[in-house]
């Protein structure tokens, strides 16, 4: 199938007084039309910056995309003019953020915010836009749409605001939605409502979805493919089944052993990853996971491991990727 989006060796850096932050450091992945891809990794590993880079929304200064390509339906988004990229944003690629309040205008009614985008991007008149807004709210499960459209964002609960954001994201019939921690601020039952809604709508409308989260359960439930990020790089990628059932990078293995599971009996042992993620201004020529890695060897200090196929379309960036199946040393 034709690729919808292809990232090739994307590099985004922040130039700060403390040094250069290599927030995204050579990220490559692709998405096919209609597919759901999960990006997981702990805070600060570059998930949001890689997403913002796609739409060229990285604050500049201090940030800059310093290398790579972002091909969307064959066009390199990094070469578009400001006018052209603005047309892509919202229209062809939409974004849903963790905190909808910051992306909604507090002094405009919900209805006006939806119709404004529709008029802008879809070139339809006010009356048509009003009708479409009612339809969109219905689609995202907000009842009594006509009354709700006259209300302001603060009248909506967190879950309802996120439904509005999804309605707005869908309003211009995009090909891709990027959802950055869309349910992290919500309670678990509301999280389930929102994620089910996103899954249903994107599948029904054939919209591709990038879902960024630190929650391994959410990715397991919703993603077809998974990218695992660590310190600005994708360290492992593959199908959800490959990543969860045959993890081939020490970081992925460590994450899965650290996370308490609802289906594990009380007291099931957790094996944490010792230490903490590195400072992204201080990366050296070796593997960034090395200080926390129980499989590390000499070569890991000398050279950064390339992301290479381990088989069946699964990739791992680890010098020892073929030796990981041996039993791990017992946890201390």
């Amino acid at each position, binding site marked *: 199938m034709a690729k919808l989006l292809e990232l090739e060796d994307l590099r985004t850096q922040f130039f700060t007084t403390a040094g250069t932050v290599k927030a995204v450091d050579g990220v490559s992945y692709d998405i096919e039309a209609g597919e759901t891809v999960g990006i997981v990794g*702990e805070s600060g590993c570059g998930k949001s910056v890689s997403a913002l880079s796609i739409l060229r929304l990285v604050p500049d200064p201090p940030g800059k995309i310093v290398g790579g390509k972002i091909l969307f339906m064959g066009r390199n988004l990094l070469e578009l003019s400001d006018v052209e990229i603005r047309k892509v944003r919202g229209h062809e690629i939409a974004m849903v953020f963790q905190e909808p309040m910051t992306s909604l205008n507090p002094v405009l009614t919900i209805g006006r915010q939806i119709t404004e985008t529709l008029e802008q991007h879809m070139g339809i008149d006010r009356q048509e836009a009003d009708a479409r807004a009612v339809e969109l709210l219905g689609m995202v499960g907000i009842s009594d749409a006509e009354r709700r459209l006259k209300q302001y964002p603060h009248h909506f609960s967190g879950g309802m605001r996120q439904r509005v954001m999804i309605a707005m994201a869908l309003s211009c019939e995009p090909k891709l939605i990027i959802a950055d921690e869309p349910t992290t601020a919500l309670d678990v039952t509301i999280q389930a409502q929102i994620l089910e809604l996103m899954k249903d709508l994107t599948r029904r409308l054939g919209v591709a979805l990038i879902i960024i989260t630190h929650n391994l359960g959410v990715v397991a439930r919703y993603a077809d493919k998974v990218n695992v990020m660590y310190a600005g790089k994708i360290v492992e990628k593959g199908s959800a089944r490959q990543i969860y059932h045959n993890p081939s990078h020490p970081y992925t293995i460590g994450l899965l052993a650290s996370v308490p599971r609802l289906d594990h009996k009380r007291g099931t042992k957790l094996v944490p990853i010792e230490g903490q993620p590195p400072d992204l201004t201080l990366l050296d020529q070796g593997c960034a996971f090395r200080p926390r890695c129980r499989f590390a060897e000499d070569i890991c200090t000398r050279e950064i491991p390339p992301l290479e196929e381990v088989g069946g379309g699964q990739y791992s960036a680890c010098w020892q990727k073929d030796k990981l199946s041996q039993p791990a040393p017992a946890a201390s």
Partner: protein
Amino acid sequence: MSVVSAPERTEAVTVSSVVGNEPILEVKGLKMYFPISEGVVFTRKVAEVKAVDGISFHIRKGETFGLVGESGCGKTTTGRCILQLEQATEGQIFFDGVNIAELDRRELSALRQKIQVIFQDPYSSLNPRMKIGEIIGEPMRVHGIEPDADKRHARVAELLSICGLDPKFADRYPHEMSGGQRQRVGIGRALALNPEFIICDEPVSALDVSIQAQVINLLEDLRDEFGLTYLFIAHDLSVVRHLCHRVAVMYLGKIVELAECDELYDNPIHPYTQALLAAVPVPDPEIESKREHKVMKGEVPSPINPPSGCVFHPRCPLAVEGCRSVVPELREIKPGHWVACTEV
């Protein structure tokens, strides 16, 4: 008051061997209503937030008791009442058999040494202008324990290493540490006075998975080493299953279900508990593809005007007409398994 007191009749529960039988803490019919006032000069109460609405439970020595539920259901308020940071509207709290509302100042100060708290946010709960050593040493200073500065420093160094931190951290400031390290400092401070009972209010919620596991293991090690009892408050149901001996599920200020941990997760009976557990995704795509992803409708109503009868009735798939008017009592359905629902 229509609350059955769960504590007295739960002996049949089997818990791990370190857990004693005698309760260290008993909460009976606790209510905390916050007044909502209007007016500036002559304020008058116009409504009440029923943050905690008549809950009863007990915690045994050495036990980790989980309190779960979605935000706003009253978990933190329950902890604050136990800490005497809120004046309960109704009900009693007994620690070691003594009603804590009846303690004089000196006794209360002694109690404050035995009960400590660890908060969710390691960023805001540590004074940014104090060095780590001062933060951990402060409770000792306040309570006049270890007035000798050298001994206090030695104790701080010991606490730091118990919590897995280099004693050199004593000279650093909170902003020079990561979230996980700051949470270890919060734990060290809580341990400074050799407490018996620690209220852990979302202690790992702000931490990343790999760091979260480190802190969970630390809390478990400390529990075993010092025979600590925890009230473990969290919204993360997986973390609670991992750590707790018994668990109570709260909804809108009430306990809707209470049982031994694995029993609650393997055989949830209350419709709310069932919906809550169904909503939590498991990190395994194989299992997830086989689970039925039924979502509960609606959102939690306001605690200012909670629904009549069973507070869960507007969202409940099992609700019958009577649920609008009858307040369900917490009943022992199996030994040690308590449920507040008339239809199960």
